């Protein structure tokens, strides 16, 4: 298990000297995944809220579809987005293939069903719990939903974290639509895949450690924020 100790010390060295290539890749990973999270979070939560309060034909079918899509294979999504954005594809004129935007689009497709599916379950459970109170208070749906979003904020935050986790750790889709272009679309996961293919296993593993560390820091940050907020009356 030489690789592990070598990788650990390599990870430490890279971090200690704030290796500019590493910083560039980490920042891009964060930028792409957080952008995707912001968009998918907005769409997913909105859709989940609508599904919670509305009843229409095909709603059950839509929910089943969304729940099934929570586990969309990234490679398939990557391929589909690639075919859409390719110059020969329907959206080829946008010239977005092999750009960070393409990566964001692919991740939005991956994240939206995940966030929507989890959030809908949370909101619907809460709706069942609070429904009579809202009716008793004479709230309209919009007001009730706003309250519901605030009431379930911690569960929804966990949902968003799950989405972020999926985004930052995903390689199949971003590799296909991003192309792993140095300084343009190269992110943590595509670098790890590339270094593995170069046989630089220690470096690849070191980058993996840093990715895990990053996820750990973000989750710890959210956890602490949440604890403080909860102590102040949540």
């Amino acid at each position, binding site marked *: 298990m030489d690789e592990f100790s070598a990788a650990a010390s390599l990870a430490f060295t890279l971090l200690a000297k704030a290796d500019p290539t590493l910083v560039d890749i980490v920042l891009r990973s964060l930028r792409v995944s957080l952008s995707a999270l*912001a968009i998918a979070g907005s769409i997913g939560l*909105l859709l989940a809220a609508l599904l919670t309060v509305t009843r229409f034909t095909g709603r059950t079918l839509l929910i089943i579809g969304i729940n099934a899509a929570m586990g969309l294979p990234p490679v398939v999504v990557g391929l589909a987005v690639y075919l859409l954005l390719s*110059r020969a594809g329907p959206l080829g004129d946008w010239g977005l293939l092999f750009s960070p935007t393409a990566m964001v689009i692919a991740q939005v497709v991956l994240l939206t069903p995940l966030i929507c599916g989890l959030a809908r379950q949370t909101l619907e459970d809460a709706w069942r719990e609070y429904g009579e109170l809202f009716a008793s208070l004479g709230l309209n749906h919009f007001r009730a939903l706003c309250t519901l979003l605030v009431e379930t904020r911690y569960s929804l935050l966990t949902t968003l974290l799950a989405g972020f986790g999926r985004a930052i750790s995903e390689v199949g889709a971003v590799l296909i639509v991003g*192309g*792993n272009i*140095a300084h343009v679309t190269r992110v943590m996961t595509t670098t790890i895949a590339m270094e593995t293919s*170069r046989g630089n296993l220690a470096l690849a593993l070191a980058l993996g450690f840093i990715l895990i560390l990053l996820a750990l820091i973000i989750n710890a940050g959210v956890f602490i924020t949440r604890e403080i907020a909860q102590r102040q009356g949540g």
Partner: protein
Amino acid sequence: MRIRPLVLVGMLCSLLQTAHAEDPYITLSSTTSTQASGFFDYYLPLVKAATGIEVRVVAVGSGQALKLGEQGDADVLLVHDKPGELAFVAAGHGHDRREVMYNDFILVGPASDPAKVSRGKDVVQALKTIADNAAPFASRADDSGTHRTELRLWALAGVNAQAASGTWYKELGAGMGETLNTAAGLESYTLSDRATWLGFGNRGTLRVLLEGDPKLFNQYSLILVSKDRHPHVKAEAAQRFVDYMTSAAGQAAIAAFKLGGESPFKANYSASVTNGSD
């Protein structure tokens, strides 16, 4: 605590705009071998300094690289599959094919060399021996230039290796590096390009067992993607890139690239050797 979607979307838009406001760039579709060896990390800054052009490399197998060109998703290709390249140009997808550099394929395998291929100099004979011994062989099986070369060599050896797929012949469907990782793990023979091998850090017991057979010659060529087919192609910048790579300075820079004390690529552009439709 609550998300403000509009603000975030706004931030994203500004972010994307900055991404687009960068210097002019071209997209080069190339092979995993050139990327894995670190060649582009060395060469592209030189291109940028000489021409001002930022070259963005998408490294895939030669088959997929040609496909990217066909779809118009790249401006210029650097690939190594002559039959595929000629078909590409003949179909009108590209033009001005120029042979710019070469290296060679090598047959690597475990140091124990169960099929004793290191005794010979003939790669076709070596493959026959491997098949006869049913010695494990890892194939890229990804329609890359290396894979296509490997298939041609099997055909020359008169062996239907794919019929043995799943037994001693293992079709991985993977890039060169991944295939070398697997070959190292399984102690298999495999065909590799020299550049990837020189840059490869996880060799395990793998050694170069056979090299130098003229059939292992590996020519890389540049092809410009047709602007007639794909009007958005950055033909002018791509042309300047090709011109640099085939210039005396560009060729000298290729030759100067060193990896593990060796030169993985040898520059061999000659103005007389072109196959194109322009």
